[in-house]
């Protein structure tokens, strides 16, 4: 009896144990993952670790673009108790149009969508208001939002991002992969009150790399302010300024007008023209500023020197199918330096003829035209340089004076840097550092000989000296070299040149030790000479370069005086075959011509009493320098032998800070 009972008891215990074991196997093995997930859902919380997009700084560490955490609201329309009430409530708190919100929510509901963004990037007050409602169907998610704290400053350089914080323009687009961060995830074990107890990293957060630009925000501000004022003052359409360090290619400022605020997204259907960076994306015919390249090529490939006579044919030159005029009347035979100073088109054509098509084409390419500079910006234009095989009969003449070629403002700055730094082509760059790593400096490539660059600088100084076409670019206390440009805009529909201009100025300062090159371009200026580069762009250069030299603490290289307005008197023959026969004759230097504003009122300056420029003609260089030193004068000698020509002319009024250029020849 007892044994039988024990047997039953043992069997029951065995069955009971077997049942327990089966349940354990089911819990721990068969449905392990299911219960694990259920447990995690109850006990764990997944937290997104923010990895903000990298900050963009200027060269001094001032943030130009940065991301901050913000919050967005979403709902599951399928779980909202009443869509009408929800729309009313959310519209009220989030300041949204309630009927419109309701329609969208209803559409999402009808489509069976379980996710609907109500509003993204809400304010802190709105988020707090929603939290106080304590409605479980209102979900708030943390997101990152891009801010541009300086507003429109450097907007074209920085670009913008879309709602996913992906770059759509500028540096934001070009360096999107560097700037973009990878948010991480963390699993947090929580208690019943959802307080964190322990956490495990699921995905490691990878913050975006910060980018330090070469831009100086102070110079950028001045450049933008001045170009905006100039465009408004001269009724131009667009404008751009590029300021660059000629030795390492660092772009210190890049302004484009019209500007925009990258904090504000473009409206649908909005004209996107203002979002174009005119400094790099919009090429134009450079006009006379291109003569710097023509003359550089001539110095390199021909026997022409600054004092070499160039016949300007009295201001009219007939070519196959077209006639070229100098806009300020006829010039005869003038030194090549004066061709640049007066910006004579015919003089430039004659120089270009000496250079030849092949050499001209090669130097166009050597100076970086016809290809992208490689700056870290999207949508850069390469400009347009026709292949040599496509050149027509007058192409060489056109190219010599800056037609039949299109360039960007940045390309012009790159070319000006070649002259400024002694003949090396340096690639412009905008990125100074990626994170803490300094960006590698580009390898410069020699384009012209150093002596050619120095000679070009001396000739470019003549442009801003009295009688030149860019006198409004002169700076008090600094030597300046430059070149004006006033290219008529071609109307492709009507197939002829209009009376609108691309007024530009390419400048270097200080000339004795170049620290910056600045190129200013205004597109669509009007009013004849009032729209020329020397009138519209040179003053912008003066303000921008002056401010830059002050900010960069560049020592002055000449006494600080007001730019002299003294000009030499008018006279002289139209055609001088022997350059020596006109040496020292001030009339040649004073004759106005070219396509620029070559000081049309050159002849009417009154001659004040005071010290006069001594006559150095016929003296040796040693004697000239000794005399100049004894009188405290600054002489810029050029060439060798005895003094043949000087500027200002002997007897001209001498002002403090004036420098006398003396050309020597055997």
């Amino acid at each position, binding site marked *: 009896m007892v044994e039988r009972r024990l047997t039953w008891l043992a069997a029951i215990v065995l069955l009971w144990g077997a049942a327990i074991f089966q349940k354990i196997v089911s819990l721990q093995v068969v449905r392990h993952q299911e219960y694990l997930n259920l447990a995690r859902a109850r006990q764990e919380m997944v937290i997104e*670790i*923010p990895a*903000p997009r990298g900050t963009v700084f200027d060269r001094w560490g*001032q*943030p130009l673009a*940065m*991301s*901050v*955490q913000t919050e967005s609201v979403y709902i599951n329309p399928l779980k909202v108790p009443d869509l009408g009430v929800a729309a009313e409530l959310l519209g009220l708190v989030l300041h949204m149009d309630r009927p419109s919100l309701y329609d969208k929510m209803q559409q999402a509901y009808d489509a069976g969508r379980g996710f609907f963004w109500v509003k993204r990037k809400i304010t802190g007050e709105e988020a707090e208001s929603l939290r106080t409602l304590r409605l479980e169907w209102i979900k708030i998610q943390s997101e990152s939002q891009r*801010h541009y*704290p*300086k*507003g*429109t*400053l450097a907007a074209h350089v920085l670009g913008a991002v879309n709602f996913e914080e992906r770059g759509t323009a500028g540096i934001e687009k070009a360096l999107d992969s560097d700037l973009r961060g990878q948010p991480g995830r963390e699993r*947090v*074990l929580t208690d019943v009150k959802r*307080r*964190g*107890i*322990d*956490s495990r990293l699921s995905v490691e957060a990878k913050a975006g790399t910060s980018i330090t630009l070469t831009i100086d*925000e*102070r110079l*950028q*501000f001045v450049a933008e*302010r001045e170009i905006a004022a100039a465009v408004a003052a001269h009724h131009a359409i667009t404008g751009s300024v590029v300021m660059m360090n000629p030795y390492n290619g660092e772009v210190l400022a890049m302004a484009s007008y019209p500007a925009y605020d990258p904090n504000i997204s473009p409206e649908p259907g909005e004209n996107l023209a203002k979002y174009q960076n005119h400094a790099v994306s919009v090429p134009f015919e450079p006009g006379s500023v291109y003569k710097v390249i023509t003359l550089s090529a001539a110095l390199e490939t021909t026997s022409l020197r600054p004092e070499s006579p160039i016949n300007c044919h009295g201001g009219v030159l007939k070519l196959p199918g077209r006639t070229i005029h100098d806009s300020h009347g006829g010039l005869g035979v003038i030194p090549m330096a004066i061709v640049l100073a007066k910006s004579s088109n015919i003089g430039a054509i004659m120089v270009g003829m000496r250079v030849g098509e092949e050499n001209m084409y090669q130097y166009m390419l050597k100076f970086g035209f016809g290809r992208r500079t490689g700056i870290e910006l999207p949508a850069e234009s390469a400009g347009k340089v026709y292949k040599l095989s496509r050149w027509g009969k007058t192409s060489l003449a056109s190219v010599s004076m800056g037609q039949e070629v299109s360039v960007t403002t940045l390309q012009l700055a790159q070319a000006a840097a070649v002259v400024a730094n002694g003949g090396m082509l340096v690639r412009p760059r905008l990125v100074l550092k990626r994170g803490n790593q300094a960006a590698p400096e580009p390898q410069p490539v020699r384009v012209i000989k150093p002596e050619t660059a120095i000679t070009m600088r001396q000739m470019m100084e003549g442009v801003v000296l009295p009688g030149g076409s860019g006198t409004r670019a002169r700076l008090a*206390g600094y030597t300046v070299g430059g070149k004006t440009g006033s290219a008529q805009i071609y109307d492709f529909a009507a197939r002829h040149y209009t009376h609108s201009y691309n007024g530009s100025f390419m400048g270097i300062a200080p000339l004795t030790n170049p620290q910056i090159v600045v190129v200013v371009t205004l597109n669509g200026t009007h009013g004849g000479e009032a729209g020329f580069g020397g009138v519209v762009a040179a003053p912008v250069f003066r303000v921008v370069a002056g*401010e830059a*030299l*002050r900010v960069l*603490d560049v020592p*002055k290289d000449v006494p*600080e005086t007001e730019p002299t307005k003294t000009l030499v008197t008018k006279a002289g023959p139209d055609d001088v075959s022997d350059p020596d026969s006109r040496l020292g004759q001030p009339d040649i230097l004073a004759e106005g011509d070219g396509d620029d504003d070559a000081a049309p009122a050159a002849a009417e300056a009154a001659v004040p009493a005071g010290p006069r420029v001594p006559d150095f003609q016929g003296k040796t260089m040693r004697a000239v320098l000794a005399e100049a030193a004894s009188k405290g004068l600054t002489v810029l000698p050029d060439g060798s032998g005895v003094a043949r020509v000087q500027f200002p002319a002997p007897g001209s009024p001498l002002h403090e800070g004036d420098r006398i250029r003396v050309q020597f020849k055997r």
Partner: protein
Amino acid sequence: MATLPTFFRRTEAPANPVMAARPVGARTERDTERDPHMLRALPNDDILFYCKKIDNSRLVREADPQGRGACWSAIAGACVLLVLLTSAFFPTVATTLAGYKLEALRTEERQLLAERRNLELQEAELLSPARLDRLAKDNNLVTPSSRQVVHLDAKGDATVAMVK
């Protein structure tokens, strides 16, 4: 209804001799009149208990060294067990508490970082060149010419300048 206090109070000697002379349970006519709803007496309500005072001060507990030892052993064992349990569970508890604190600190860190970025953003907005330019104009300030700026100690980046 007889309550325990009234029950125990009956064992005490009455303070009023007249009342003490009355037999327990005897009701006066006046009582009956005063409380017509008084319940009937409980069984054995009339049994009286007296306190008998016993003096056992002369009694002395018999010495029991074995019992005392066993008692102390039990106490010591309990203490050891307590220490062992405490030391066994202390790390877990401490870890949990530290976990709470750690997570709270992490949350606070994230909030502070976000707050710092907001403050940096505000600072950058306040230092905007356009704003500074506007403020300078409002206060009739002008840009000093380079001749006015005197560098007091031009060493590296730590250049100090003043305006004359």
